[in-house]
């Protein structure tokens, strides 16, 4: 059997394990459902009058506008949860056994990211379903919904790569868990919850350059207006950049982990 086929089998097996593990442990899946859903309800109810502000983009409702932000929040928490699960594997010695096996090292990380991708996909379906149940329209129709789901799933892999790198570097679940507040900082400093033009300085300027703003706009556009090639490409470029960063950090962290044991 060729090396590529072997690697694909390993990624498939580890990915299936990671997906099963994710959906079996309520502590991994509940943060990506409970907190973003609670915040979606509170922010939609509390700041919904914001759509009357001059300069707010034309939307059917604030819920429709907020769906992309909630998906982003859940996706980032999914990346964090994936990192925690990976760190738990390291703490329990499971990863050491994989390192000793005759399998490519990158397959170990890719296998873990499959679980994170599944969580990302679940998050996007969850929030699209909530939006539809509570009356939000998906202006881009089925293709728009599929695009939003694809972008969120790809973003989960990108963010999960950074989570995996931190897990590999530190080998500590509590350190990865401690990054939770950082998720909120990154989101508040992006256009996830409000149009960037209406935000207050310095958040407004930071949001302009935050790569997560490009992703959230790419996810939001098919929901509030329809598929827009420019914003989709910008979102894909931002995701690619984060994936590249995750790859570099993971490779370095993997080398460090193999050196220190």
């Amino acid at each position, binding site marked *: 059997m060729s090396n590529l086929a072997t690697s694909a089998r390993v990624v498939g097996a580890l990915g299936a394990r990671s997906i099963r593990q994710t959906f079996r442990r309520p502590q991994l899946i*509940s943060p990506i459902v409970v907190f973003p859903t609670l915040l979606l309800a509170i922010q939609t*109810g509390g700041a919904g009058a914001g759509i009357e502000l001059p300069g707010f983009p034309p939307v059917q409702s604030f819920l429709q506008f907020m769906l992309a932000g909630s998906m982003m929040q859940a996706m980032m928490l999914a990346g964090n949860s994936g990192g925690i699960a990976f760190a738990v594997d390291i703490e329990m010695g499971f990863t050491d056994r994989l390192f000793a096996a005759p399998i490519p090292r990158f397959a170990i990380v890719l296998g873990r990211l499959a679980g994170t991708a599944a969580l990302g996909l679940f998050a996007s379906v969850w929030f699209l379903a909530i939006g539809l149940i509570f009356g939000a329209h998906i202006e881009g129709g089925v293709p728009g919904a599929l695009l939003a789901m694809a972008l969120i799933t790809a973003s989960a892999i990108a963010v999960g790569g950074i989570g995996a790198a931190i897990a590999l570097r530190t080998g500590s679940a509590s350190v990865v868990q401690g990054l939770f507040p950082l998720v909120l*900082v990154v989101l*508040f400093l992006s256009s996830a919850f409000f149009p960037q033009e209406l*935000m*207050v300085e310095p958040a407004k300027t930071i949001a302009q350059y935050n790569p997560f703003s490009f992703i959230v706009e790419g996810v939001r556009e098919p929901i509030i207006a329809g598929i827009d090639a420019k914003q989709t490409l910008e979102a894909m470029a931002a995701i690619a950049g984060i994936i590249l960063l995750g790859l570099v950090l993971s490779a370095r962290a993997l080398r460090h982990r193999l050196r220190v044991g």
Partner: protein
Amino acid sequence: MEAIAATPPAWRANLATIAAMMVRAKNELVRVPGAAIPGVLAPTIFFLGLNGVFGGLIHLSGFETTSYESFIVPVSMLQGAGFTGAAAGVNLARDYEQGWVDRLLVSPAPRWVLLTGNVLAASLRAFVPATFVLTIGFFIGVQWPGIDGLLVCYLMVAAMAAAAACWGSMLALHYKSQSAAPLMQAGTMALVLLTPAYAPLALLQPWLEKVAEINPVTHVIEAARQGFVGEVTWADTWPGLLALAGLLVVLGSLALREMRRTNV
């Protein structure tokens, strides 16, 4: 006839037990200061984040202030109190898992004394995130609420932390596991944010307006906020005090019931 050593009156022993439990909580804070960081960081991030994101809402007609940071700072202080109270529940669950609660339960201290020690410790600890958030707030332009406004706000913070600690303790004693932590945190977060936290009642969506009208914490938020957005009045203070008294009676009774049900 031999003299029998006088035993201290029960109330004095109870006070000493409560004080000892509060000192233990203080020692935890001093010896492991890193453990307090998430409880301080979360409301601070929310405060700065909400101000940056939703600050433009003050341009809507119906807002009673021109400073969104002043409007939102008491919410973040109360959110910090909620997180601190929930953390008291998580710590109690940890103590249960490690066998410390068993040792307390076989002591001659009444159950209500053990609960009071845990709850009052949370009240005092809540001053740490509240003061941190307020200090950051003053740096970015929060209006001075006056001594009376500050006192009312801190009173609300302390009592809110006590109510949240009762909620957390009730869940900790019911589930006897730290895995109930998300429920403790989500409960206090919902209680604090399903109020006119982001905008005045009139600007909320109809469903949230209805929820906020029956949520007792709405009165707590409005009492804590009054000094930051206007004058402190008795009319805006007493509903907050009454709401907190009600929450403490209900949640305290439920926590005490769970504590009485807990067997060694």
